[in-house]
């Protein structure tokens, strides 16, 4: 029984290039108030292009319809639950969008005089302070453009700190439950990677950790709550083990939505961490970006933060550049300011108490899904659920149906699937993160859909294996796409 959706007609739409025809236009420039310039004379004849072959020519109304029609082929949070685990797909408040479009902010040039940038700098400073309070850390940089970029910044900070003590060391330890960005990041920062196995509770195995930490180890990168949605019970001990050997504790803050107002990484031994403003702080994911990955550090790492640093003197903000120990810049200008505006708007809307209540509802929603689905799906880990829960497809796999198939069938029920096959420590993982902005009604529809699919697996597995059935596009051939890549349109 599919309660949430019924099918409706969608419009077909060619690619822009197929829609294009010479002489159509959607633009008009103001009349030029200065003399025209002969491009060939100004730039040299060979520097001037003759035209952009096959570039589209489309009218305004056709352009708008084109993108509007394409938009209807997308699922989105605005249409319902988007339970991608570790992605924190929460409601994106529209007031944030309005705030980011305030003229004096949207049109602020990064090189306009500081005296005429005080409002923008005040916003950046306010957000830094907010994030320090939430994380319990001493300093924050907003320069990194995304979570993975924040990770790189954080590991470079650790490298700089250790180098200043005489030896940057060689290895970064990474639990087997970690996001793939963690090892990729450590490699970019010039470290080799050593995997740490998780114990039967899905947490960092202390014995394995003790055996691995030595004077070659620069840091451990840990996600807390970890990728199975469980709080690392021994996190304080973990920090102690690392610190005793002069190593640092890096925390991947992807799952901070479980902790805001409840526990602060700065209070449990974390030295450096990143946040994802597009997850915890509600800025829109936009189909895959833009994000923002602020990095928060304890005092001993502060001298190494990227330049420039925001400072205040006599009540005026200024950017400080001369910082000899800084790792340098990780991005031009001062970070994704427009994303920072949205995140600050979100924090203002909630206030301190609201943020804590949001965290509680996020955990309530995840726990509720877990409790309702437990009778129907295998739950490999029994530890208390935080903001997400991870099931395995073990029972359904016995009937030949895998996590990826169940995911596709969910689409027919009107939902975006959960995260498929991650974390890798759970075979056939189904990683579900509802966030706090889902109502009980939406959660019930989702749970009912999952239970209904579990039943279909028993009665008619073919139905699930061939899903989705209701979408305008059926399962796509990803193998063919990778084998013979067609990465652009070309005129036949």
């Amino acid at each position, binding site marked *: 029984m599919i309660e949430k959706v019924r099918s409706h007609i969608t419009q077909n739409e060619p690619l822009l*290039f197929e829609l*294009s025809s010479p002489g159509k236009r959607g*633009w008009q420039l103001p009349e*030029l108030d200065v*003399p*025209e*310039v002969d491009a060939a004379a100004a*730039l040299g004849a060979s*520097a001037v*292009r003759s035209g*952009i072959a096959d*570039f589209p020519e489309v009218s305004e109304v056709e*352009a708008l319809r084109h*993108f*509007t029609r*394409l*938009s209807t*082929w997308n*699922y989105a*949070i605005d249409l319902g639950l988007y339970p991608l685990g570790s992605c924190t*797909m929460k409601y994106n408040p529209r007031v944030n969008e309005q705030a980011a479009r305030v003229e004096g*902010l949207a049109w602020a*040039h*990064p090189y306009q005089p500081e005296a*005429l940038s005080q*409002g923008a700098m005040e916003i950046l400073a306010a957000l830094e302070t907010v994030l320090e309070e939430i994380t319990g850390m001493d300093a924050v940089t907003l320069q990194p*453009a*995304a979570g993975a970029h924040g990770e790189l910044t954080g590991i*470079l900070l650790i490298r700089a700190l250790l180098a200043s003590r005489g030896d940057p060391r060689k290895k970064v330890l990474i639990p087997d439950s970690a996001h*793939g960005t963690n090892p*990729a990041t*450590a490699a*970019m920062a010039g470290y080799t990677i050593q995997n740490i196995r998780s114990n039967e509770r899905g947490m960092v195995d202390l014995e394995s950790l003790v055996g691995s930490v030595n004077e070659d180890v620069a840091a451990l990168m840990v996600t807390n709550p970890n990728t199975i949605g469980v709080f690392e019970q021994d996190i304080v001990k973990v920090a102690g083990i690392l610190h005793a050997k002069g190593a640092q504790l890096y925390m991947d803050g992807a799952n901070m939505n479980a902790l805001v107002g409840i*526990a602060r990484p700065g209070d449990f031994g974390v030295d450096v961490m990143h946040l994802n403003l597009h997850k915890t702080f509600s800025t829109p*994911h936009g189909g895959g*970006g*833009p994000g923002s990955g602020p990095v928060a550090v304890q005092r001993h790492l502060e001298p190494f933060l990227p330049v420039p640093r925001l400072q205040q003197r006599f009540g005026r903000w200024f950017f400080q550049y001369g910082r000899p120990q800084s790792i340098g*810049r990780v991005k*031009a*200008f001062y970070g994704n300011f*427009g994303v920072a505006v949205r995140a600050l708007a979100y924090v*203002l*809307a*909630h*206030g*301190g108490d*609201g943020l804590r209540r*949001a965290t509680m*509802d996020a*955990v309530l929603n995840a726990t509720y899904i877990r*409790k309702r689905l437990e009778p129907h799906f295998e739950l490999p880990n029994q530890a*208390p659920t935080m903001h997400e829960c991870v099931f395995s497809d073990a029972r359904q796999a016995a009937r030949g149906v895998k996590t990826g198939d169940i995911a596709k069938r969910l689409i027919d029920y009107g939902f975006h699937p959960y995260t498929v096959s991650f974390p890798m420590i759970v075979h056939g993982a189904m990683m579900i993160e509802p966030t*706090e902005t889902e*109502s009980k009604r939406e959660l019930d529809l989702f749970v009912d859909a999952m239970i209904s699919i579990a039943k279909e697996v028993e009665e008619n597995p073919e139905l699930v294996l061939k899903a989705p059935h209701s979408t305008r*596009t*059926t*399962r796509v051939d990803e193998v063919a796409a*990778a084998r013979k890549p*067609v*990465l652009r349109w070309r005129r036949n």
Partner: protein
Amino acid sequence: MRYLPNSPEERRQMLETCGVESLEDLFAGLPPEVRLTRPLALGSGKSEYEILDYFRARGDENANGYASFLGAGVYRHYRPVLVDAVISRGEFLTSYTPYQAEISQGILTTIFEFQTMICQLTGMEVANASVYCGSTAVPESAMMAARITGRSRVLAARTLHPEYRDVLSTCVKNQGMPVEEITYDRDSGRLDLADLQSKLDDDVAVVIVQSPNFFGIVEDVNAAAELAHSRGALLVHVFTEAVSLGILEPASGADIVAGELQSFAMPPSFGGPYAGVIATREKYVRQMPGRLVGQTTDTRGNRAFCLTITTREQHIRREKATSNICTNQALVALMATVFMTVYGKEGLRELAKQNLAKAHYLATLVKPRFSGPFFNEFVAAPASRPPEDVNARLLDAKIIGGLALGRFYPELADSMLLCSTEMNTRDQMDAVAEAFTR
């Protein structure tokens, strides 16, 4: 709290299902020593009205209603209204990376169109789905070139955006990739090809050249490419002013193009978010960082798109990935896609020509310091006073002048970088000229 949808009664029912008495009980499993025992000191929740009021007040503390001649990597161009109309569609704004192709064909199709248009503009064969920004595209391109050539030295033009050079050096330092600078010709403002030649050897992986360069001057990228290729190095062509692609012939000698697309409908927004892009030759695609969208078919044989060649990426390759990048700048890239669509083949050329005309008009009043050909910005030195003084004068007329260059180029401390786009009027330019010469 207005973003939390459940009623007290629904919460009660849910707690009952969860088998706990209160919300607080959900956290009973946390070690007591990690718990925060006080409320966050972040004040109380605010209404929409108060929030907008706060940000409007901050906006009013910034330059508001000023004309501006700042460029230097961030350009003021008109944003067609269609851009916000499209990106405000919740289906684009509030979706995520298109892992589930069947319900993500909208964003996948626009990315495929984006990749195609970037190829058409740059003359490259493949383009990725975008990266964070132009500045981070540069080290990614350098590391890509190092993987392709198996070499490590990087030669970067001194006329590459100074902040890009900083980012490059921060990011490749730990890859064992030394970065050296290639000087510029003090008369033309162009890359010093003799200096490039003298620094090239068989260890050089990549030569990085920006065009139009930081001084706004159009480089002979192909000449630099020929030199680079003669020693087996690759050439990365960096651009920061995407509108220039409307009029400039793409450099056929480039192996990788790394660009910033801010000019294509992204508000300056005090430095971000923008979108960068990396484009290259087909033969290098498997060394390229970032997301890629490819064309395929669904089970009914209909055309469909999906993320592809993901075996380069971190979620599969982990520490052996081409980069730690795990997403693109989809919504920002969509701004660029809509912008390119609105202007199209003729419009982008006309827009570029207007920019050319505006800057060259200003250059008839204020003499450029360098003799090289320029697009929409150029370096100029006021006759008898420091550039900061000229700018201070202009502020009185609500005009933000050019970027004083001393902070980036001590040798040009007497000069500023002036940019004129279609948004600058003749009157404003006359005012700049007056402040320069008066």
